């Protein structure tokens, strides 16, 4: 079909071949002979020996194809060149071949052998491209060859070839769907592939060939979740959509206890759940059937691993994650997607269009989610109309009692827009707001009535329609409006509006007894010229008047009905006949006649103005079907949650070589942890009022996952070391050296018992590894993963169920949980390594493909992952604001005999221990001899104080300067830390006394949180001081700078202009320090510090005042 059509086109079109003429007019098809001559020309060129001529010919042919012209008669000449040496000619021949092979199947077969040869090529890229072209040739005869090639490629060494094989699967399937079973086998095999390159493509193939075979996913579920972040963006979209469907079939609804929450809708989901279980226990065991909901760890894994993708630059990925959260996440967590979706509104208008459609649907169900972003949906006059209308929809959905006044004010501006379609939509939106929010109904109605005197007829007409709907709700009070509208019949021409007015008058004719007959009289006069809908309403009005006021309107009604009897439209004729029978009593008319009044003037329920996006969410969001609100071809229904959870053990994997990925998994788990707790925190004020067990379990999760991941890293090191011993040996040695130093040190100074624990852990890890080798390490480690997961909710039952090695593992995990900080000290070891060794390593790939051949690089990233943990454990802690850093002198050049030492507070979190203040020490050697083995010894800290020395500096050349970082835990006091600074010859006694402002780290909180916390810290904990700001220190900038330089605090956003707020936490105990500076009139100001550490508070006030006044 396509050929025939294209051929006729070609007759005309190709006459202008080669020239930049792009239209196609079949009229100019006269020059047949020259036409073929031209093609002969090309054929000649293709037959020549010169590559350049061939290339030229191919380029012209491809240009023809691109313009949609037929070049099929060149097929024999082109196909000969399939084996050409020139790579561009070859490529262009491929392009041609793929386009025309379907039409010239016999000839196409000539090329097959070339590709078959290519499939055996040692170069992976040639193999891949051969497969790609071979599978793109849609010739049914070669199906067996394709099948064979795909099968072979699916077990190719190269992941790139395997990816191509995955791409080829849907091609073959569309060519011959009988191959389905065999293809499913290949898909199954490729699904088990562990490279990110293949993952996206094979899931795509899965979705096209066998989306119903959800069972194939079980074994690969966890792997897919973990690989997801490293898959290329297009693959991510496909995988996320598929996993959404999967999760709907395999997990229980996280909102199943929703009904319990109805009375207190604001309550955080988790909290009440927990309470609920308590109640249950207290009451009776009869309620056992309603088990407390516990999220499947795999479900959690999916949510956790998709969340970072909200930050993707690809709108499709963001949308995919958003829909996943909308369909799968517990209510309390869905909110996180709002911000990302709002961000997409900055994108191209097509993206906006799609996103707004989805936001509109979401905003009906979860209004609260988008409320904070209300202003992002305000409309600009430059938006395209379709975007304006969608934004309006969202604004209307978001309207509630509190924000309605702002929204209505916005609407008022919109009504004056030049875009009339948009104005009409705005009026409808006002109508919807009025029906939904009773409070503003009268205001809206008045506004709409004013619009009735608008000059634009469309506006008036739309208002009439909306007013009609509103009046139906409370007609009695509004006879004035009805009268006003009756007058409009003289002017308004828009049929819908006229019809609406007539209906209103008819319906409420008893409220306007004098006007109604008059309106009917006028309408009877113009009846023949009216539109059909108006005519129907005239008949309607006539009938109603006849029933209520037959004296005045009997004749008029007769007249109208007679007119209608001879109308051209049969609907109108029918209606007239029907009504006449009904209302005019005759002998024939039966019992109905008596009830005519009841029939016509029955109480009619007021219409409900609803969003057109209501109930659209039964389609998967972000899908084409949702956008069109109709099922698209190939749409996979989003299944409902099951009532009973299917067996979760199907996802357990028993493949042996798994260590790698699971440790990766753990790493992620750990890193992404703050997210989780973050979102918990977001759930607002109720959280703090929450029941105890929740926070406890959360903490235990933190610690356990922490423990497990550090153990994972140890394992990782061991494991990978084994695998590529020779490569890594050198680096390992280096690592050990560096690791040992700080470790010993911390052992001595801190003397925390878990340090040994950790060492032991390593040994155990080794032991365990041996066990694993025996048992198949995959099993244990995957179980381990699930153990660490389940420990979040039911740590006991989870671990009990495990086998002995896993039990050892959990115990070990619990040990460090008691002394939280210590594992961090050890993780610090790898951190330094990864930083220092960067130069020696091949640069670490940021998105490692965990294929087995790149051990070293993925090791680096694994280590890198570890380095992140320190700060991520305290999510709210912020990296500090760097003002001018003040340096202090530790050792003067004179007293130090040429060695001078300065220190400053770098305000960076001290990586080894978050409870320590990082002190950056700058040592310069001003002597003319080398200073050797510079180190700290005999720290004599006061009770509780701890010092983490810097690694020993082996030698410092004359004139050189070295900079090191040490950590000191000042225990939130400003007492000095004393220690000795040793060189190979001398000892110096030195001490560091911290300014109070350095004993804290900035913390971020919202204005509300700030106020809440401040409310708790009143009375004794509040210190207030009045001060006068000097001239130069009155600008915002100066004040902020002075305060942040005096103390390591973070700014808190503040609504008021003349107020500044800062917040921090003391480093050791983590108690809050809140600073408020209120500017009064003139130069006066008041400084308030709230902190439960009164000493710190007092000193801080002094310091800040000094900083500001100076």
């Amino acid at each position, binding site marked *: 079909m*396509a050929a025939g059509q294209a051929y006729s086109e070609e007759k005309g079109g190709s006459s202008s071949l080669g020239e930049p003429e*792009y239209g196609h007019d079949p009229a100019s098809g006269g020059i047949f002979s020259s036409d073929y001559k031209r093609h002969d020309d090309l054929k000649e060129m293709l037959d020549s020996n010169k*590559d350049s001529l061939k*290339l030229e010919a191919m380029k012209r042919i491809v*240009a023809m194809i*691109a313009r*949609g012209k037929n070049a099929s008669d060149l097929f024999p000449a082109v196909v000969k060149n399939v084996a050409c040496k*020139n790579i*561009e000619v070859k*490529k*262009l021949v491929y392009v041609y071949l793929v386009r025309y092979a379907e039409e010239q199947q016999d000839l196409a077969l000539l090329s097959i052998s070339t590709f078959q040869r290519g499939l055996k090529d040692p170069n992976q*890229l040639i193999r891949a491209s051969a497969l*790609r072209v071979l599978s793109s040739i849609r010739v049914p005869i070669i199906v067996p060859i394709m099948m064979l090639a795909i099968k072979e490629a699916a077990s190719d060494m*190269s992941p790139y070839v395997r990816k*191509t094989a995955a*791409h*080829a699967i849907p*091609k073959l399937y569309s060519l011959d769907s009988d191959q389905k079973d065999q293809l499913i086998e290949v898909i199954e095999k490729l699904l088990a592939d562990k490279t990110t390159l293949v993952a996206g493509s094979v899931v795509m193939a899965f979705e096209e060939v066998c989306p119903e075979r959800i069972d194939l996913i079980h074994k690969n579920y966890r792997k897919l979740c973990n690989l997801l972040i490293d898959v290329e963006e*297009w693959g991510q979209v496909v995988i996320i959509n598929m996993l959404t469907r999967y999760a709907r079939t395999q997990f229980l609804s996280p909102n199943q206890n929703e009904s319990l929450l109805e009375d207190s809708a604001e309550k955080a989901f988790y909290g009440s759940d927990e309470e609920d279980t308590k109640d249950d226990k207290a009451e009776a065991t009869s309620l056992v059937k309603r088990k407390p909901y516990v999220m499947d760890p795999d479900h959690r894994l999916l949510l956790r691993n998709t969340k*970072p993708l909200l930050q993707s*630059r690809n709108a*499709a990925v963001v*949308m995919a994650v958003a829909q996943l959260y909308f369909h799968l996440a517990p209510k309390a967590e869905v909110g996180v997607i709002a*911000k990302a979706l*709002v*961000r997409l509104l*900055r994108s191209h208008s*097509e993206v906006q*269009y*799609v996103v707004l459609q989805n936001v509109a649907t979401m905003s009906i169900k979860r209004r609260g989610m988008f409320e904070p972003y209300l202003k*992002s949906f*305000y409309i*600009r*006059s430059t938006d*395209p109309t*379709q975007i304006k209308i969608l934004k309006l929809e969202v604004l209307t959905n978001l309207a509630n009692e509190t924000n309605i006044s702002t929204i209505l004010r916005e609407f008022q*501006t919109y009504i004056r*827009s*030049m875009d009339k379609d948009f104005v009409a939509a705005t009026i409808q939106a006002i109508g919807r707001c009025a029906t939904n929010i009773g409070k503003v109904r009268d205001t809206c109605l008045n506004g709409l009535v004013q619009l009735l005197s608008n*000059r634009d007829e469309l506006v008036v007409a739309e208002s009439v329609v909306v007013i009609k709907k509103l009046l139906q709700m409370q007609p009695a009070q509004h006879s004035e409006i009805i009268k006003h509208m009756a007058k409009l019949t003289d002017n308004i021409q828009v049929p819908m509006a006229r019809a609406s007015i007539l209906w209103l008058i008819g319906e409420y004719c008893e409220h306007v007894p004098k006007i109604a007959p008059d309106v009917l009289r006028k309408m009877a006069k113009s009846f023949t010229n009216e539109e059909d809908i108006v005519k129907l309403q005239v008949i309607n009005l006539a009938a109603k008047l006849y029933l209520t006021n037959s004296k005045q309107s009997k004749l008029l009604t007769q007249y109208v009905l007679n007119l209608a009897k001879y109308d051209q439209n049969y609907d109108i004729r029918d209606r007239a006949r029907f009504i006449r029978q009904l209302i005019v009593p005759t002998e024939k008319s039966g019992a109905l006649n008596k009830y005519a009044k009841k029939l016509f003037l029955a109480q009619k329920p007021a219409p409900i103005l609803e969003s057109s996006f209501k109930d659209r969410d039964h389609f998967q969001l972000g899908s*084409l079907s949702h*956008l069109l609100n109709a099922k698209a*071809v*190939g749409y*996979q229904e989003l299944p409902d949650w099951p009532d009973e959870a299917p067996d979760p053990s199907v996802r357990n994997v028993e493949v042996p070589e798994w260590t790698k990925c699971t440790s990766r998994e753990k790493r992620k788990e750990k890193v992404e942890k*703050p997210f989780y707790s973050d979102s918990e925190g977001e759930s607002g004020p109720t959280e703090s009022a929450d029941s105890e067990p929740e926070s406890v379990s959360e903490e235990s999760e933190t610690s356990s996952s922490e423990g497990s991941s550090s153990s994972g890293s140890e394992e990782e090191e061991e494991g990978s070391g084994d695998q590529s011993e020779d490569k890594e040996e050198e680096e390992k040695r280096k690592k050990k050296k560096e690791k040992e130093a700080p470790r010993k040190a911390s052992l001595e100074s801190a003397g925390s018992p878990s340090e040994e624990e950790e060492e032991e852990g390593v040994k155990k890890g080794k032991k365990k590894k041996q066990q694993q080798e025996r048992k198949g390490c995959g099993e244990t480690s995957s179980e381990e993963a699930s153990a660490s997961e389940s420990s979040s909710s039911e740590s006991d039952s989870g671990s009990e169920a495990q086998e002995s090695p896993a039990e050892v593992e959990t115990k070990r995990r619990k040990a460090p949980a008691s002394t939280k900080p210590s594992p961090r000290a050890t993780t610090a070891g790898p951190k330094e390594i990864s930083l220092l060794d*960067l*130069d020696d390593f091949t*640069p670490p*790939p*940021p*998105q*490692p*493909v965990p294929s087995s051949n790149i051990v070293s690089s993925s090791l680096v990233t694994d280590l*890198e992952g570890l380095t*992140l943990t320190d700060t*991520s454990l305290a999510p709210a802690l*912020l*990296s500090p604001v760097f003002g001018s850093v003040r340096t202090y002198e530790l050792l003067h050049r004179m007293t130090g005999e040429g060695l001078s030492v300065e220190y400053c507070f770098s305000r960076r979190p001290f990586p080894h221990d978050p409870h320590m203040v990082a002190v950056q020490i700058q040592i310069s050697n001003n002597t003319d001899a080398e200073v050797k083995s510079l180190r700290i010894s005999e720290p004599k800290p006061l009770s509780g104080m701890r010092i983490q020395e810097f690694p020993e500096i082996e030698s410092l050349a004359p004139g050189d300067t070295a900079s090191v970082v040490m950590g000191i835990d000042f225990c939130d006091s400003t007492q000095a830390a004393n220690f000795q600074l040793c060189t190979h010859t001398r000892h110096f006694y030195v001490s560091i006394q911290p300014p109070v402002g350095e004993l804290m780290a900035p913390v971020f909180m*919202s204005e509300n949180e700030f106020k809440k916390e401040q409310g708790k810290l009143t009375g004794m904990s509040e210190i207030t001081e009045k001060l006068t700001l000097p001239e130069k220190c009155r600008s915002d900038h100066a004040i902020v700078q002075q305060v942040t330089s005096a103390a390591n605090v973070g700014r808190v956003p503040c609504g008021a202009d003349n107020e500044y707020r800062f917040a921090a936490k003391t480093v050791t105990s983590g108690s809050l320090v809140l600073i408020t500076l209120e500017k009064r009139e003139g130069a006066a100001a008041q400084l308030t510090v709230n902190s439960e550490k009164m000493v710190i508070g007092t000193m801080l006030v002094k310091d800040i005042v000094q900083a500001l006044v100076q």
Partner: protein
Amino acid sequence: MIHSLFLINASGDIFLEKHWKSVVSRSVCDYFFEAQERASEAENVPPVIPTPHHYLLSVYRHKIFFVAVIQTEVPPLFVIEFLHRVVDTFQDYFGVCSEVMIKDNVVVVYEVLEEMLDNGFPLATESNILKELIKPPTILRTVVNTITGSTNVGDQLPTGQLSVVPWRRTGVKYTNNEAYFDVIEEIDAIIDKSGSTITAEIQGVIDACVKLTGMPDLTLSFMNPRLLDDVSFHPCVRFKRWESERILSFIPPDGNFRLLSYHVSAQNLVAIPVYVKHNISFRDGSSLGRFEITVGPKQTMGKTIEGVMVASQMPKGVLNMSLTPSQGTHIFDPVTKLLSWDVGKINPQKLPSLKGTMSLQAGASKPDENPTINLQFKIQQLAISGLKVNRLDMYGEKYKPFKGIKYMTKAGKFQVRT
């Protein structure tokens, strides 16, 4: 997934078509033309049009419609995002993406499209990889090609696709190693009649031009990363590093790319650098209206405001305008009713103003809407949010690169209602 792609110009000619599966007749575009006719303006053509057997998804950029044909359910954003990526790639290849350019380079375009999709599923969309596969045409290369008969197609096999850093080509070499970063912030705002801000937010991007040899590993840190409320990254940025330390750590692609786009939280008050005083009034019965606009600097942190452009869509009733600007040039198009005034730099001593009268349609009543004023401006060397880059470090390579950072603030969608 994506079956076919048609490129359609403003006058409705299909000037390029590409099919990734079996051929779809171009008559399917008739549905598109129908929809186009129904929508008065190009931008109002619905991006998704269902037809009996296909779905047409289109984007409109550079006066060209890119219409993709799909047959089965697919996330619409997937296709739309891909089409935009195609346009970006063309722009990257040819400098501009116009009908003429595409026609001139039709073979390259065709080859690029062939590589971007396989069977309708995206295969290589990173411009670094594509450029390795198919070299972009340059004048020099065209000359060389005609002389030597060599080609645009890379003769080496594209190893980039196999790399673990798929966005960066391998074996990059430069004599001058440089890394430049532009922090560009745009202010989106709606200012109401009285001059108070209805909504204002700052959207920023960091565009980078990195020309560094080998495989450099960069880290970029900010003085005040807390300002960034919502961010989206180029895939090269290590997300975890950002989560924990608020540091951007990445192996950059070669050449120009957008490293980061961010949004500054709405809680922070946005400094609005300009104000517009306006007095636009129509009188009933009179055929003349008064028009007066003054633009002045507000909170500019001592920087000059440049490149100021004022545009306003006047109501239909306005026939003509006779205006005198105190500086710059202005044009009023009586057909589209679009007034634009190119102001240039604002001198705080002598504020630019545009004054005059409007002649209205005789007899017509006064238009009930007032025009909105759209403002464009630029402020060099200033990031209005106060974002500051702290430092840029390089690991993994031994040489010392030139580093540069530039700040700029622009008006985004800046609208003043009157």
